[in-house]
């Protein structure tokens, strides 16, 4: 009798411990990697940002990739550029942090200074290289940012700074305080993070009242969890598992795969050879086979919604005869077209990496190139990808994946194409000039300059071997009204989620 009641008691207790498969207004989100830090100044790290950005901590402005609305106000109501080139932000009033303290300009200054402080190694300073920025409090609700050299995209750069209270110490915190609609209520390392809605949030109350974040490294398990109702959203699942059209969505994930050419090494110093290289690749043939359906053929190193995207630029067609003709022409002029070219990949860089590069190798060989394929681990790959490039190198096509979800080409262009850009394979005075002018320009002028550069690099310089804008896949429970966007790689605002 006692034994029986013990058994039934245990079973009953176990049932109670099982998390209810909630049909409520909370959501469960399963991420691909444990969130081991919840520091607001590290929110540029993908999974930290997915938990904190716009949920716990907010920013002065945010980039609206969902509705394509561009830069939108958040904690700043408006901003303008002053005559001396610095930027003035007018802050929202009546905003409080989750610890009850009020939000004002001193919090903004502290958040910026703290993120830039060299005594804690935040990730944010990487985006502010080559400039010095000074934050200056004008009054409680106004703050100026003075940049040297001037930064026309400073408001965009400030979307990277999470605002924390002035009292936050300059060391990594484990209990982030912010102005966002949610607060951290539970954090069991390695297992779950729970956010709950605040009562005193300044903005509109989101439909989601709370969120639990879980971590599973295996993509098949993440997909299974949404299928069984144990989770509501898995922002990233494998293309292979994305089989259910009712729950699985593909989205342009802001990554671009391209082959970097080094124009200082023969035969890539010859325009005809670079054109032949591009004409030899049947890019269409990859889509839906080795590269998932939904991926786009690339004509720039950043994806379409970026400012200054030039619709008029057309992707290189597949024309092996023309490629062979151009190569013959170059050979007749004494260009060393038979020099063996090394196609360089990074191990496990993206799905089907090896197969894609093998197909590229084959296509190039069919067009008349001699191509070897080599793969390297991250650190060795980095030595070939970034300057200083190795001495005595032969012609290399370094196939890399570049991420730019920030909405402006300046996050890519200098590094990839300026004469002294760390990963640049070209040295072209017109490109340098266009980059400098575009980076200093604003509004329509900036857009026009980026457009010009996009076309010039692709059509005239034929700078590199652009391949694909990649896609990611998410699985979403059918009870939710939410689809992934390009921003899903870096943030997942719960306020965007609605219930059907």
């Amino acid at each position, binding site marked *: 009798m006692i034994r029986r009641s013990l058994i039934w008691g*245990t079973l009953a*207790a*176990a049932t109670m*411990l*099982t*998390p209810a498969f909630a049909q409520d207004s909370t959501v469960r989100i399963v991420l691909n990697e*444990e969130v*081991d*830090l919840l*520091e607001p100044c590290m929110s540029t790290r993908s999974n930290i940002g997915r938990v904190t950005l716009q949920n716990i901590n907010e920013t002065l402005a945010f980039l609206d990739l969902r509705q394509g609305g561009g830069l939108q106000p958040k904690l700043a109501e408006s901003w303008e550029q002053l005559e001396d080139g610095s930027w003035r932000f007018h802050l929202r009033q009546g905003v409080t942090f989750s610890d009850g303290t009020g939000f004002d300009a001193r919090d903004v200054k502290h958040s910026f200074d703290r993120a830039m402080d*060299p*005594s*804690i*190694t935040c*990730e944010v*300073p*990487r985006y502010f*290289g080559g400039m010095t920025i000074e934050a200056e409090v004008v009054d409680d609700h106004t703050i100026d940012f003075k940049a040297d050299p001037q930064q026309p995209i400073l408001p965009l750069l400030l979307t990277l700074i999470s605002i924390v209270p002035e009292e936050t110490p300059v*060391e*990594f915190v*484990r209990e982030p305080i912010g102005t966002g609609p949610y607060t951290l209520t539970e954090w069991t*390392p*390695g*297992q779950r993070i729970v956010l709950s809605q605040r009562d005193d949030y300044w903005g509109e109350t989101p439909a989601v009242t709370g969120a639990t974040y*879980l*971590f*599973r*490294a*295996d993509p*098949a*398990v993440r997909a*299974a*969890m949404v*299928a*069984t109702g*144990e989770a509501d959203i898995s922002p990233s699942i494998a293309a292979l598992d994305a089989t259910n059209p009712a729950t699985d969505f593909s989205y342009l994930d802001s990554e671009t795969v391209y082959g970097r050419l080094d124009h200082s090494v023969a035969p890539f110093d010859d325009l005809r050879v670079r054109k032949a290289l591009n004409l030899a690749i049947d890019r269409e043939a990859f889509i839906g086979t080795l590269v998932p359906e939904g991926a786009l053929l690339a004509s720039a190193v950043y994806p379409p919604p970026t400012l200054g995207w030039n619709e008029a630029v057309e992707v290189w067609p597949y024309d092996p005869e023309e490629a062979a003709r151009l190569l013959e022409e170059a050979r007749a002029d004494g260009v060393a077209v038979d020099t063996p070219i090394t196609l360089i990949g990074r191990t496990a860089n993206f799905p089907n990496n090896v197969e894609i590069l093998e197909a590229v190798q084959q296509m190039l060989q069919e067009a008349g190139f001699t191509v070897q394929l080599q793969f390297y681990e991250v*650190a060795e790959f*980095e030595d070939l*990808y*970034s300057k200083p490039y190795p001495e005595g190198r032969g012609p290399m096509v370094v196939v890399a994946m570049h991420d730019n979800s920030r909405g402006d080409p300046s996050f890519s262009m200098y*590094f990839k194409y300026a004469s002294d850009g*760390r990963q640049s394979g070209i040295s072209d005075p017109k490109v340098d000039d266009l980059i400098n002018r575009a980076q200093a320009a604003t509004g329509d002028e900036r857009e026009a300059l980026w457009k010009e550069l996009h076309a010039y690099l692709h059509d005239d310089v034929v700078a590199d071997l652009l391949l694909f804008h990649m896609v990611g896949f998410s699985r979403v429970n059918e009870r939710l009204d939410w689809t992934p966007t390009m921003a899903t790689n870096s943030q997942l605002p719960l306020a965007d989620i609605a219930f059907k």
Partner: protein
Amino acid sequence: MMSFIRKRAFASLISLILLVVAVFFLSRLTGDPAALYLPSEASEEMRRQFREIHGLNDPILVQFGRYVWDLLHLDFGDSVRRARPAFEVVSEAFLWTLQLAVITMTLVTAAAIVVGSLAAFRVGGFFDRIASLTSLIGASAPDFWVAIVAIVVFSVGLGWLPTSGTGSVWHWILPIGVLFIRPFGLIVQVVRGSMINALSSAYVKTARAKGVRTRPIIFVHALRNAMLPVITVIGDQAAALLNGAVVIETIFGFPGVGKLMIDSILQRDFNVVLAAIMITAIAIFIMNLLIDLAYALLDPRIRY
């Protein structure tokens, strides 16, 4: 007995020191954490500052000296990645692994002894053939495959159990079930072999001749004598589980020490790697000691 324990503890301490020295210097060979934590466009000044903050700027012998000094004060240092004390991170994870290992090994031992003994009683009989076949399959099935199939069948298909994670009793069933299979297969084979030897010995024949029933013959007379090689294998398997079941932890999202160790090596989080290795090494030392003591308990001829 006490002098035996003291001797073993001293020998283990020496191995532990050698292990810490080796891991400390070898882990530094995996590369500079600054290269991993800072972007490729980071300036030399940023890299210098990063190393300064994490004490990586000094000569390696100075770093080692400081590490040993802190260790003597029971300070395992901080995790670079997590910005928390390394000992805290590792002990949380180790506790999960310990529970998983203890529960699994208890179940495996009990089940394997019963099945192995019964199989040995009638060699070549129906039960023996079934037991041998299943244990062979169990010992050779790859656990990542078993785990995924188990999730597909029991969670997605039948909806009986949660796919992964922790939180209730039900969450433990799949990971333990999958972890159970391989050591069970191995130990059944060893128990069977060892029992066949024991059952053919003179004292069992005597017992049979005296009319002792089957059950006491197997579980009282033969089993105790057959257990010595079995305990050795149990020890090996338990040690493997204490090191963490990386595949199972990864698939089931179990926050154990195995995955933590692999992640920390990849993240160049040296303090966590060292703390994890020390704690698991100490646990394995304690377990080996218990196994040695169990020998003496089972076999009166063994004296320490």
